[in-house]
């Protein structure tokens, strides 16, 4: 007899995450419009919500063109990788106590592994397109994501040291008395910056940088293959927001309201911050990005880990 409970959770998680990722297209356009003193899409259906349906119908019915000069296998594989890795990462995200697909003892490491595997999608897309702008985008993405991954992992280790576990439910339960954002504020800021860089959102979208590289690594993509990159990016945003909530803001813990609602509110807040960043910040130059990552943020992450370790060792 197969236990149906995990299958139910998987179905629920997929349903919520995929719908949210689709809906975010509308949320982002509306919020950006609000902050830029415009209306945004408000014609299709109530509040323009039908825009999501219209957009997805358009994406599915558009011509799906694979350029003859492209490396076909890798070209088709690339958009699948980004969606698959970011959806797999949700396997270890607990939405409430016990509401998780797989509560692995290496939860955080699994998340880091999935985010580092996500690099392949951009790199392969850039290479297989056989287009110089796409290749430049792919190279930028590979260098950027590898560099920012290093201190992304290191900034998380402060939380791991305090909680004494890689398991995400343990980390959330250890925050009953105090959210980790207070003792690990430096770690939180570092992880947030790394998270934005990992999702390749503005101001770290140098891999696509439309003003210099057309559309970067996905210049040659059309139809739903382009849509997969689009959706993959939003899933990444949801994932990083969920991680911020779980590791630094007490996850599902909160008074009065039920646990999943708290988790949802906190995650949505960070998603909105992601969108606000896009509306507010300019894009840095690529060499500035790299030197920032290696010369400022990496040493800061190491110092943060050192101080945290010293405090834990002293038993404060």
């Amino acid at each position, binding site marked *: 007899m197969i236990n149906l409970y995990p299958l139910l959770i998987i179905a629920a998680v997929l349903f919520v995450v995929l719908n949210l990722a689709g809906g975010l297209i509308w949320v982002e356009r509306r919020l950006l419009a609000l902050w830029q003193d415009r209306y945004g899409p408000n014609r299709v259906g109530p509040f323009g919500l039908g825009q999501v349906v219209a957009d997805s119908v358009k994406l599915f019915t558009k011509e799906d063109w694979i350029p003859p000069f492209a*490396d076909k*296998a*890798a070209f088709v*594989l690339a958009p699948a990788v980004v969606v698959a890795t970011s959806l797999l990462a949700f396997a270890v995200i607990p939405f409430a106590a016990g509401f998780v697909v797989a509560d*692995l*003892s*290496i939860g955080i*490491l*699994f998340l*880091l*592994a999935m985010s*580092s*595997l996500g*690099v*392949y999608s951009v*790199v*392969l897309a*850039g*290479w297989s397109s056989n287009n110089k702008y796409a*290749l430049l985008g*792919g*190279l930028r993405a*590979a*260098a950027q994501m*590898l*560099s920012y*991954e290093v201190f992304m*992992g290191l900034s998380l280790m402060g939380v791991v040291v305090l909680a004494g576990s*890689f398991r995400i439910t343990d980390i959330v339960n250890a925050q009953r008395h105090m959210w980790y954002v207070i003792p690990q504020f430096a770690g939180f800021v570092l992880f947030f910056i790394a998270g934005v860089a990992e999702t390749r959102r503005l101001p770290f979208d140098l891999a696509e940088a439309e003003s210099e590289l057309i559309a970067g690594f996905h210049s040659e993509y059309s139809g739903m293959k382009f849509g997969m990159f689009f959706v993959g990016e939003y899933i990444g945003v949801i994932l990083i927001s969920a991680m911020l909530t779980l590791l630094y803001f007490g996850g599902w813990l909160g008074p009065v309201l039920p646990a999943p609602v708290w988790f949802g509110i906190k995650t949505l807040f960070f998603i909105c911050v992601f969108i606000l960043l896009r509306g507010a910040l300019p894009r840095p*130059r*690529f*060499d500035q990005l*790299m*030197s920032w990552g*290696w010369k400022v943020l990496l040493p800061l992450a190491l110092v943060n880990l050192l101080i945290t370790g010293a405090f834990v060792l002293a038993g404060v």
Partner: protein
Amino acid sequence: MAFIFYASSIVAVVATLLTITRRNAIHALLYLVVSLLAIAIDFYVMGAPFVAALELIIYAGAIMVLFVFVVMMLNIGEHAAETELDVFRPRAWLGPGLLAAVLLAEVARLVSLQSGAYTGSTEISSKQVAVALFGPYVIGVELASLLLTAGLVGAYHLGRRAVSREEEIRGVDTDESRAVSRGAAVSAGAGRSSHAA
């Protein structure tokens, strides 16, 4: 669990064979990534989740990305695939084939000695791994860190941009020239660290 172990082992073996026989370098690397992923599953099933995670993060997620990165930069085209054909002549296979046959015989002997070599009972936690690493095996950790530091220093030396006399006199240090030197340092450092690791 035994079924998962054998299934992912078969995937690993087939993917590794395909890695060797592909003529396109990027395709070969991708099959190697698949092989590493399958081996990570093997580790996980055998009760070593920490090693499985490291396999994913370091090998599949960092080192192989650097390999792909370098191959992308080299821009090897059709003619490289043709020269690869040379490697597939029977004479080139003789030496490696013999060496591999010795290993195969050893594996066969081991398997025949103890039936059911697969043991997936106890899970080794990351804390146990850390205690072992910084307890009895601390010398290994120190040696590895020495090696990595040497690699880093070497990469820095190789990636350093030689300043010509003319520039030194004029004191040219435009944004562009700095950007170039940094780009070179980063890519050289990346290639180097993959060797050291």
